[in-house]
């Protein structure tokens, strides 16, 4: 652009000699019309490349804090930078307990044993021979937006809600794999173990295992990313992220839950009476506005599209309402189809900002009729008693405050 501007400011007769012949030839075709065109050669683009990268102008990144054990903890998806519903695999949030496992798919095996007629070992090539399905599902960490519960809201949507991502997953239904081994009458649960260093494990009711759980090897059209469980992971649609075990190496069919640390201690919900809820699997209907959102700045009064994501672990989103006055009045947002069950749904609402203060909120309803609650409603029932890992399963309405100068902050 700079080059063009510089040329435009020059008289045509001051052009470099290298352009002269071209100029004269063009001039013969019609000097008057052509005279004002910049005539520097356009720069050729980059050559082809075997593996694509995003534009160097794009800088969206997962975010995470410093840690003395970098393999643990989480990284968060930059929801504010994304459009549509699919999270690029490279930006899918992470949560690991002992680092990203490095697994050779040619050596990896999945053992299916326990209360089965015939314990089996599957190589990856075996799993890929089963009839496959591809389904879009969100994964949300149980602790996503738990700090909102605690009254320490995230200053931007990546901080507050970035433990949510949404992908198309490809794999074989767990039902198919279990039936291949033959499920015994006494079976009620499956215990699933990762092949990461800490052998992360969880128990899943057999009913769910036979419903919609996937043994997934594909994500967004390619093999799983290592951070997402390469070469094979569990997808447990609509249920808390932790139970979507990555790098799975064993599925044991049992008659009871095995009370692993992740289900008998960590991913539980401590209530004010001192009792804790456990096996609280489902992620309830939730939504958040991703644009405009915290730390963004509106560029003067006028039209903006309020846009965000909504999802429910119980099925499809049926309605999204948006408020610009902190919940005093609501307007129905447009849902971008197709609206899929247990998948992120994009919503939007055209909004004319008048330059005054505004409190933006979104409220989702799912096909069971469940309406996303406010923080106050949640606290009135669940209190403020932090469990071993803080607060899980928080799904309160999130507010972004628009200031007169256009700055957007959390409330």
């Amino acid at each position, binding site marked *: 652009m700079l080059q063009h501007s510089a040329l435009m400011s020059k008289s045509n007769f001051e052009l470099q000699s290298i352009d002269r012949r071209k100029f004269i030839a063009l001039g013969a075709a019609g000097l008057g019309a052509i005279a004002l065109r910049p005539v520097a050669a356009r720069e050729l683009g980059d050559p082809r490349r075997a593996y694509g990268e995003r534009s160097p102008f794009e800088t969206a990144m997962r975010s995470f804090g410093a840690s003395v*054990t970098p393999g*643990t903890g989480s990284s968060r998806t930059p929801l504010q930078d994304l459009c549509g519903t699919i999270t690029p695999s490279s930006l899918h949030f992470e949560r690991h307990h*002992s680092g990203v496992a490095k697994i050779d798919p040619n050596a990896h*095996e999945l*053992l*299916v*044993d326990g209360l*089965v*007629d*015939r*314990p*089996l*070992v*599957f*190589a990856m090539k*075996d799993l890929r*021979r089963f009839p496959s399905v591809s389904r879009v599902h969100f994964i949300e960490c149980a602790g996503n937006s738990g700090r909102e519960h605690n009254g320490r809201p995230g200053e931007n949507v990546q901080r507050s809600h970035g433990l949510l991502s949404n992908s198309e997953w490809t794999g074989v239904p767990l039902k*198919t794999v279990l*039936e*291949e*081994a*033959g499920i015994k009458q006494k079976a009620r649960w499956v*215990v699933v*173990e990762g092949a990461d*260093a*800490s*052998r*992360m494990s969880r128990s899943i009711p057999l009913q769910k295992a036979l419903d919609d759980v996937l043994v997934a090897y594909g994500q967004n059209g390619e093999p799983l990313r290592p951070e997402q469980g390469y070469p094979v992971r569990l997808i447990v649609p609509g249920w808390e992220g932790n139970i979507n075990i990555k790098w799975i190496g*064993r599925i*044991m069919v*049992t008659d*009871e839950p*095995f*009370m*692993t*640390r992740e289900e*008998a*201690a960590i991913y*539980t919900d*401590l*209530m*004010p009476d*001192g*009792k*804790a*809820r*456990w*096996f*609280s*699997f*489902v992620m*309830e209907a939730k939504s958040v506005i991703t644009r405009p959102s915290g730390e963004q700045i509106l560029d003067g009064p006028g039209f903006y599209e309020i846009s965000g994501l909504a999802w429910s672990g119980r099925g499809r989103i049926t309605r999204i309402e948006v408020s610009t006055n902190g919940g005093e009045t609501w307007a129905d947002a447009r849902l971008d189809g197709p609206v899929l069950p247990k998948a992120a749904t994009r919503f939007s609402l055209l909004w004319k900002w008048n330059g005054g203060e505004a409190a933006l909120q979104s409220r989702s309803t799912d096909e069971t009729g*469940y309406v996303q*609650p406010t923080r106050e*409603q*949640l606290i009135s029932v669940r209190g403020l008693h*932090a*469990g*071993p890992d803080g607060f899980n*399963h928080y799904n309160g309405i999130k507010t972004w405050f628009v200031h007169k100068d256009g700055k957007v902050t959390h409330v």
Partner: protein
Amino acid sequence: MSRQSIFYALGALALTAGAFNFAKHTSLADSKGAGLAKGQRNAAESARYGLGRSASAADFAKHEYLVGPKGTGLPKGHGTAVQGRAIYLQSCAVCHGGRGEGTNDYPALVGGQGSLKSDNPLPTVGSYWPYATTVWDYVNRAMPYQNPGTLKPDEVYGLTAYLLAINGIVSPDFELNERTLPAVKMPNRDGFVPDPRPDVK
């Protein structure tokens, strides 16, 4: 038995049995692999696609102990808190503190009993975890953080005994083994309730 020999064995079995059931599996009948599938189905009625191979003792041996609340999966072994303390100081104290009190990012393993109803609940192994088997299972599979999988069963029994002892759940000389461990009653054993959600009206 190699994969190939399984193939031949099952194929022979299928041929001698002569019990092909094409009608039931027509969707698979027209590929070469389906022949193998049918053969394996005859060998084991539960198999539908004939994929995977039968698991052997060597396969089970590759996997971690998977321990249930009744003690299912616990290996034979034993240890006391006295023995466990030495291992704790060597392998665990650097993160969890000299007596399980926790440091910075690393959770406390002791204390908090009676605190769960208070405004400052301290959920620990002692105050929160409902099963002692969970302690054994988790320590064995995931600890020490830098070297998971290196502890021997006796060491895990010892460490578990130590964690239970500093929480006042067993005495320092109590021998924890595959029989006594599942019988330990944790203080918060009855502290958990089923998920009542949707809970907001």
